[in-house]
């Protein structure tokens, strides 16, 4: 060895020693496969919209995940039942939170009552089938396999047993998060949301237990597009919450099987989006695309109070098929950031008139007419929650200055035929209800005579009204008198 070379290697050696001194605590591995694991830990699994505790600074561990598969009946929306196939009893399945370098020992348990074999394909797995091959499990059995998390990111997992599309369409998907070394930056609130499309034999809203419709699924004509497995999983009492000034992180996945999501929060801008759940960060995003079988992480600070609506901005899915959630933010108003309504003026360039929903003039009568008062009330409530709730609100209280109340309503109780007429034909112009003046528009409602009878009976027998019973005949009389 020549002296100059010797000098060089000496310098090199000392640098190496020095750096290794500095690195004594946090050793970095070029190859994540080399990260050693210490000790065992049972993974915390959570059902949506909750997520497990962040990994923080914990070391890589042997992480034991026990996931049970359950085929069980649930409610798609009011009055509509569906046979869900689930990971952990929920759609989407339980959230799994790991860090890079973890060795995950995965136990997949197929409940003995289940009818079908299942397996799991995790997009976070590097290996054939994402684990599907090793986890194929018959009812009443448990399969175990293990894998090391090599790439940080947010990943979808799903069932991959034939027929794959059907297993996914019935709800067999969820998210697994692999956090980088040291964890994701801390935030105030974290939530888990997953979109899915459902294909039922009956049309949207048709009552009863609805079987899966393979032909509609093949055609990708979804009857329901929902967040977290059902209509209303994230609205009303189930709404996500935050306080003004907090930073919210959403883990959003899309199970599909068919549709791509244009995920958007009305009235918010995502400060940071981990595009497709990977390392790439985009800032100031309005709507982010989430492919079927993909995911994204988004962070935003909520600055003003109010209800922010989460939608798939393929917007008919949101308002007609169920892809709608809510984030309720509480706290002090900030008039500089958002003023609220300043003035309300009348503007009628095309003259007043009743707005019509586009219609084929063909309202299919409900195939199951109510047989008793109790059934009328039950079906009426379902129709109310689907049709009237948005404006007249859950307790019929309406919205001051905008939508008149139905509770203890003098206008409603005064004339039943008029009320039937309004549901049939719509209403526009000034009316006075309980001493308040309202001037807005109600469109004609696409309900059959049976459904109108049910919903009005429900309204008349709730919230301190006159307890009238409305029959189909009464509705038909008003319908034909015009």
């Amino acid at each position, binding site marked *: 060895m020549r002296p100059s070379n010797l000098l060089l290697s000496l310098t090199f050696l000392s640098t190496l020693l020095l750096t290794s001194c500095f690195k004594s605590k946090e050793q970095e591995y070029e190859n994540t496969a080399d990260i050693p694991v210490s000790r065992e830990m049972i993974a915390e699994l959570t059902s949506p919209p909750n997520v497990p505790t962040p990994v923080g600074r914990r070391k890589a561990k042997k992480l034991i995940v026990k996931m049970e598969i359950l*085929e*069980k*009946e649930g409610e798609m929306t009011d009055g509509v039942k569906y*046979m869900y196939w689930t990971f952990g009893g929920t759609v989407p399945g339980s959230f799994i939170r790991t860090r890079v370098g973890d060795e995950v020992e995965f136990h997949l348990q197929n409940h*003995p*009552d*289940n*009818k*079908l*074999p299942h*397996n799991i394909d995790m997009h976070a797995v590097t290996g*054939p*089938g994402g684990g*599907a*091959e*090793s*986890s*194929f*499990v*018959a*009812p*009443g*059995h448990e399969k175990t396999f293990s894998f090391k998390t090599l790439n940080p990111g947010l990943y979808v997992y799903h069932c*991959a*047993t*034939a*027929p*794959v599309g*059907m297993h996914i369409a*019935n709800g067999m998907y969820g998210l697994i998060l692999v956090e980088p070394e040291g964890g994701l930056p801390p935030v105030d609130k974290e939530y888990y949301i997953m979109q899915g499309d459902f294909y039922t034999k009956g049309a949207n809203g048709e009552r009863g237990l609805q*079987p*899966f419709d*393979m*032909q509609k699924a*093949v055609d990708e004509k979804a009857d329901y597009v929902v967040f977290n497995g059902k209509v209303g999983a994230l609205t009303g009492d189930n709404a996500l919450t935050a306080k003004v000034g907090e930073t919210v992180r959403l883990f959003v996945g899309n199970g599909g099987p068919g549709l791509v999501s244009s995920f958007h929060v009305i009235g918010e801008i995502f400060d940071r989006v981990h595009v497709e759940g990977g390392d790439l960060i985009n800032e100031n995003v309005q709507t982010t695309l989430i492919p079927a079988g993909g995911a994204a992480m988004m962070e935003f600070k909520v600055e003003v109070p109010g209800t922010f609506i989460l939608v798939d901005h393929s917007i008919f899915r949101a308002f007609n098929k169920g892809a709608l959630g809510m984030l309720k933010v509480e706290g002090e108003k900030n008039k500089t950031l958002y003023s609220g309504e300043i003035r309300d003026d009348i503007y009628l360039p095309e003259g007043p008139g009743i707005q019509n929903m586009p219609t084929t003039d063909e309202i299919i009568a409900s195939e199951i007419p109510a047989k008793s008062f109790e059934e009328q009330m039950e079906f009426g409530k379902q129709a109310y929650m689907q049709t009237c709730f948005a404006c007249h609100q859950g307790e019929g209280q309406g919205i001051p200055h905008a939508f008149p109340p139905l509770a203890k309503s003098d206008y409603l109780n005064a004339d039943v035929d008029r009320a039937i007429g309004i549901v049939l034909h719509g209403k526009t112009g000034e009316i006075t209800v309980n001493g308040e003046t309202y001037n807005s528009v109600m469109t004609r409602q696409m309900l059959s005579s049976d459904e109108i009878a049910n919903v009005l009976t429900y309204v008349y027998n709730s919230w301190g009204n006159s307890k009238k019973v409305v029959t189909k005949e009464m509705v038909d009389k008003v319908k034909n008198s015009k």
Partner: protein
Amino acid sequence: MKNLTFRFLLVLLVVQTLAHSQSKGMVFIEGSRYIPLYGRDSTVVEVKNFEMDIYPVTNLEYLNFLKENPKWQKSNILKLFSDKSYLANWNSNLELKPTENLNSPATYISWYAAKAYCECQGKRLPTVDEWEYAAMADETTRDARVKPSFNKKILAWYEAPHSNEDTIGLHPKNVWGVYDLHGLVWEWTLDFNSVLITGESRKDVDKDSNLFCGSASLNATDLMNYAAFMRYAIRGSLKAKYAMKNLGFRCVKPVKN
């Protein structure tokens, strides 16, 4: 002369009935060549004439078998031939749990036990080809697989829970006179594990190019593929010692031509 012809005809008739004389509780199924959806090689297979049990084996029938063959009783069965779930719906060797019905299909039975049962009756388990052949008939046609309604009905059953608790014979019989091939329980077949399903169904599709081409070219049959896929999936997930809540069996008997 007339008399002779008559006698000859009579003899012929007797021979004919003898040839097709049916065993008790079984019906005759005329063999044929057909293309299974997802068989060993997805080509034409030939099924010879055979007889098939009209109903799946019931708890009552299995109880009688257990009385005569103590070695298949719950506490006596060899570990090699069953798993822990064997007869999990029985309280003891000869007593069903009170919630169970004697007229329901016998389930929680391993392949070994099912095979032994059939052999004791001088029968055997059906092959996958035989089972699929008999099961593609609906009430009026021998091959109903192209009818969307037939396949929808089958798919709907695959989703319905607890059907194993039903009694036998509640669904209409098919054109052969066989009940409950669909709608009640899965059924063991003799060669259930001859279809190599790895559990990675998408890979299976790639591996079996016949199947892949078949399913791609027969667009109208997507639905029937799906129903069959699910049966092959459940068969692929089994091992001979498994005993499951939703898995029963019935027997067949070859017919000499």
